[in-house]
């Protein structure tokens, strides 16, 4: 396993483009997070301190940081599709197989890399959130701090799932640009299915229940948007705003199911294909 990871890391880290993209996808959310946590003085007119809004309180901070950080996954998604696309355009996939990487190992080395970087991203976000939280939070009891760390698990699963989808599209289409375009196509297709479900069942709630099983939506639903929750903390009397934002086991199960399917399909695809 380490050997396969090591192979892939050499391919990625010696390539300048992917190195920059990896750097951006990890350092950028981190910097944004740190920047937003410091007090910004707008030329003496007013000071903006996001910490004052209470968004860096435990346990809501886990929800907020993982939600926003997950948008930076698109940078690494480019790395994932290009690491497949490059293997095809350089024909190095063929040479790798001839040199003695089995087809299974080839897919696994990509998957381990995905898991490795997802884990790294999760740890970075966890550490950063933890320290910012400690600094700003009004509550620092241990059980409150660690109450909603399930968002970290959700964040990790979300990244692994999304990158596995990218991996599959990369294997399917062999070209990075096509694979990225296909992500957008899938997004539209999911809304079309939603529309189809709405037409046949007649209400949006059921239609959303159907859409929740589709790959992109299931990944998005892992971490629900936190805006409504921030509103609730500000205006506790508005009970109609209350919604279910927690991470549920079945949401994780759906995404893990998709992940397994994408990896399996990528393997099948490579196995059947003549290079």
């Amino acid at each position, binding site marked *: 396993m380490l050997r396969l990871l090591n192979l892939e890391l050499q391919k990625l880290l010696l390539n300048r483009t992917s190195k920059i993209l990896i750097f951006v996808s990890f350092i950028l959310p981190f910097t944004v997070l740190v920047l937003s946590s410091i007090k910004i003085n707008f030329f003496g007119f007013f000071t903006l301190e996001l910490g004052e809004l209470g968004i860096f309180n435990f346990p809501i901070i886990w929800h907020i940081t993982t939600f926003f950080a997950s948008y930076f996954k698109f940078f690494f998604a480019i790395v994932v599709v290009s690491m497949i696309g490059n293997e095809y355009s350089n024909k190095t996939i063929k040479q790798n*197989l001839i040199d003695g990487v089995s087809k299974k190992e080839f897919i696994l080395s990509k998957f381990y890399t995905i898991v490795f970087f997802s884990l790294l991203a999760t740890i970075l976000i966890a550490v950063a959130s933890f320290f910012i939280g400690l600094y700003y939070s009004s509550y620092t009891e241990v059980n409150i701090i660690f109450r909603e760390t399930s968002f970290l698990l959700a964040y990790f699963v979300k990244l692994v799932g999304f990158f596995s989808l990218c991996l599959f599209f990369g294997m399917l289409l062999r070209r990075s640009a096509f694979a990225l375009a296909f992500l957008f196509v899938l997004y539209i297709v999911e809304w079309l299915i939603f529309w189809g479900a709405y037409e046949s069942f007649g209400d949006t709630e059921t239609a959303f229940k159907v859409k929740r099983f589709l790959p992109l939506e299931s990944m998005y639903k892992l971490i629900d948007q936190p805006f409504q929750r921030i509103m609730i903390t500000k205006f506790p009397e508005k009970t109609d705003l209350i919604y279910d934002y927690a991470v549920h086991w079945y949401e994780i199960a759906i995404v893990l199911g998709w992940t397994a399917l994408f990896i399996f399909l990528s393997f099948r695809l490579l196995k059947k294909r003549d290079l």
Partner: protein
Amino acid sequence: MDTILTINNLTKKFGYLTAVKDLSFTINKGNVYGILGPNGSGKSTTLGIVLNVVNKTSGDFHWFDGNTTTHDALKKVGAIIERPNFYPYMSAYQNLKLVCKIKGVDYSKIDEKLEIVGLMERKDSKFQTYSLGMKQRLAIASALLNDPEILILDEPTNGLDPQGIHQIRSLIKQIASQGTTILLASHLLDEVEKVCTHVVVLRKGEKLYSGRVDEMISSHGYLELKAENTDGLVQFLEAKKMFGKIKIEDELITAFLDEPMDAKDVNKLMFENGIVLTHLVKRKESLEEQFLQLTDNN
């Protein structure tokens, strides 16, 4: 003799096209094998199948004694197919380091092999800056990294200039002299003739010949004859069973021998039968003629 690769009734179909048809041959240790065939005769497909990048339709093959999986066997094989494929943004050294990681070979081999192919001075240059000849030599270095039992080369001199071709050929001979088994696919006849001891001839995916190169060439040769009385000569040749096929071009008659016979004996025989030859040459076929004969007349 130890067998390295055994292929039995291998068939590969690409849709309606049959690229390899019912192919069987064996490769033994210590010889230099050539797979010879015109473009599109299934050479690369055959190599692709045994190297696990192309899926076979039917038949089977096994490496070594048949007890190792193809995946493990490939670690004892060095191969390059078609063009040299490396990561363009990595240097030669880094590319070879990656291959070492794949094959589980010590990094100390890298310098040793780069020395053999003469790329030491350029080892830190990026692969994309290499000329085709250098790329091809790097590919050979890469295939040699694990000190393979067999080295498989697919058209290694394709697209190279005469100097490059010469370099690669002497490299192959040097490697073969150290006892490494080599399998060389090529459509260049003189290449196979110069380098190989055994040959498998393919045409449209079918095996036409397999055996030693010198045996393929050593038919009994043929005679070029001219006489004043051409018709009489032809009649005489057709009557005798030691002459096989007879070709007539203008005045020149080409008669293929079915039995060994000296030019001297031919001349004597003709004279005794009242035919005076004005021209008599005995020739041996080159591999090229043999090859064209094999691939055209079937």
